[in-house]
């Protein structure tokens, strides 16, 4: 690496320069005549004036400044970006899919509808749920749909007092936010020293006001919730429902099904687990699956099959639906990639995702422990991810998790998640994912061992890292406080 930073494209601008070969055909003046004068702008837009070659070089150089999964090991894992096979995108980009108009009648989109119907069926199968809707367009959107269905279910039964959602302290931050958005009151319960839900606290928390509980399993602590059946019994016994946050579905794919654990509703991040690049704020898909009692409340439209024909089912067929959460039916491209991914893997391949995601995490965990790193939950087996804590190094050597994360960049590895979950001080949350080879994992371990050595002999080296990146330590405080990032010319009065 060691590139220099790239200027903004505006700084390459020269008056009169342009990429004339890329200019759209037609007569500008005539097009302008067609616009009513009141709608025409009085000042020209401030656009960069660069040649085609300037533009190509600028964006190519920018792409080379990226630390990406296509170039480096990226142990943020499915949380941000696991490897997405190129074929999934290739088939989702078939011209017949791209050119299909979303308002085309059902009869002219049977191929697309067939894919969506089969995707619903495959997601039902892999999660053990009774029915699926592909509507929600992001994970948090899927969570919203889930809790809205729980509320609708209680309301339909005339059970109006149930407005409390229980959330374990190890939950994702989005869970309490979702519950609040849906008009519920959040009740937080602790986890025990082993990372499992504190059943005594749960027993005290449930009651006639309990709408449900939101759980991630495996939890954000990277361990499988072993008491899940007891949790389900307690919550169901009190009249509440169980919500499964699909954030960590990668760990159990094809091995354990949330439906079999007793969950009533689940959202799946198709953009994390099922082959769409995630983490850049791009389009997502937060499909929801439900048990039989919640099926009438699913967001519409869903795809139904009658004989050999597929068609949209909407409010007419599902009068109790919580409604529409997106125009048409979610993000078609993301849904198609998920469909291709599942078809390519099949049943057997799906189990291998869960197996290798877990095997790779446990291999890294054991080797790093042998190398002298402290595990946050040393008695537990890892799921698809695990946590090391640098609390001891912070105290004894004044080396923090952030220092180690920054130094990893110099060794050619993206940093794992830092300082999350909040329960564990000075932590690194490491998720290698299923696609990494033994050689890559070993190289990562070697780098971690080398960094631990540096921490003991030359801590200052870590404090100053990274040395080989286009930028050194970023100013996090300024990044959080200075939200206005619009480029302005140096001498502009604007």
């Amino acid at each position, binding site marked *: 690496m060691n590139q220099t930073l790239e200027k903004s494209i505006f700084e390459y601008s020269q008056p009169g320069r342009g990429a004339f070969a890329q200019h759209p055909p037609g007569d500008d003046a005539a097009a302008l005549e067609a616009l009513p004068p009141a709608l025409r702008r009085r000042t020209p837009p401030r656009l960069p004036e660069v040649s085609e070659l300037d533009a190509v070089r600028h964006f190519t150089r920018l792409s080379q400044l990226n630390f990406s999964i296509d170039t480096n090991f990226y142990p943020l894992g499915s949380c941000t970006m696991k490897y997405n096979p190129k074929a999934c995108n290739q088939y989702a980009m078939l011209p017949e899919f791209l050119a299909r108009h979303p308002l085309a009648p059902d009869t002219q989109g049977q191929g697309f509808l067939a894919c969506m119907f089969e995707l619903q069926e495959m997601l039902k199968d892999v999660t053990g749920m009774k029915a699926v809707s592909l509507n929600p367009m992001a994970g948090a959107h899927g969570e919203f749909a889930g809790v809205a269905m729980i509320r609708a279910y209680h309301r339909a039964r005339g059970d109006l007092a149930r407005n409390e959602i229980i959330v374990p302290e190890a939950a994702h931050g989005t869970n309490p936010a979702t519950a609040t958005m849906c008009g519920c009151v959040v009740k937080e319960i602790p986890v025990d020293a082993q990372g499992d839900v504190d059943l005594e606290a749960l027993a005290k928390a449930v009651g006639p006001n309990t709408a449900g509980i939101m759980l991630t399993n495996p939890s954000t602590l990277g361990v499988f919730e072993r008491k899940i059946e007891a949790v389900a019994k307690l919550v169901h016994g009190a009249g509440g429902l169980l919500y499964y946050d699909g954030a960590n579905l990668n760990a159990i794919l094809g091995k354990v099904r949330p439906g079999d654990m007793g969950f009533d509703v689940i959202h799946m991040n198709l953009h994390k687990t099922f082959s769409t690049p995630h983490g850049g704020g791009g389009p997502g898909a937060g499909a929801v699956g439900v048990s039989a009692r919640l099926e009438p409340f699913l967001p519409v439209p869903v795809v139904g099959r009658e004989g050999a024909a597929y068609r949209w089912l909407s409010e007419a067929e599902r009068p109790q639906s919580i409604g529409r959460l997106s125009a048409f039916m979610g993000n078609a491209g993301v849904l198609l990639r998920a469909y291709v991914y599942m078809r390519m893997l099949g049943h057997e391949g799906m189990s291998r995702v869960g197996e290798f995601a877990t095997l790779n995490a446990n291999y890294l965990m054991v080797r790093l422990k042998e190398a002298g790193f402290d595990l946050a939950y040393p008695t537990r087996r890892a799921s698809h991810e695990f946590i090391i804590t640098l609390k001891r190094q912070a105290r004894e050597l004044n080396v923090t998790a952030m220092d180690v994360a920054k130094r990893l960049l110099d060794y050619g590895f993206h940093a794992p998640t830092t300082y999350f979950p*909040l329960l564990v001080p000075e932590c690194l949350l490491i998720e290698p994912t299923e696609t990494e080879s033994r050689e890559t994992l070993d190289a990562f371990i070697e780098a971690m061992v080398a960094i631990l050595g540096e921490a003991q002999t030359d801590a200052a080296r870590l404090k100053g890292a990274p040395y080989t990146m286009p930028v050194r330590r970023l100013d996090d*405080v300024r990044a959080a406080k200075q939200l206005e990032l619009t480029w302005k010319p140096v001498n502009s009065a604007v």
Partner: protein
Amino acid sequence: MSQVPAELKYAKSHEWARLLPDGRVEIGITDHAQQALGDLVFVEVPETGRVLEAGAACAVVESVKAASDVYAPIAGTVVEGNAELAATPELINQDCYGRGWLIRVQPDSHAALDALLTPEAYAAVLASAEA
């Protein structure tokens, strides 16, 4: 090691409380808490007049690492929030027991202060978490 001033009372959740001469109680977060959070970037304090229950979330502190609730160590009514923190949240990092105070409350009962942790007891909480 983080500082634990001898004249204050503490909560396990890393807040401190100071009895002011006029009978009101000043509340903030401890040195340990500000160190763990790192550089603060936003602080949200409750409006004047809000009634706080002991242990209820009463303010939000957000750092480059995390956003965390601050819990009221005692019950009372908010009489003042630290207005300086909106523009300069770093006061908490620089002077958490002084200019970085969060709120001043009129306590429901001064006896509630006696139930809080002594500096020795809070230091022991920190030591056990370190172990």
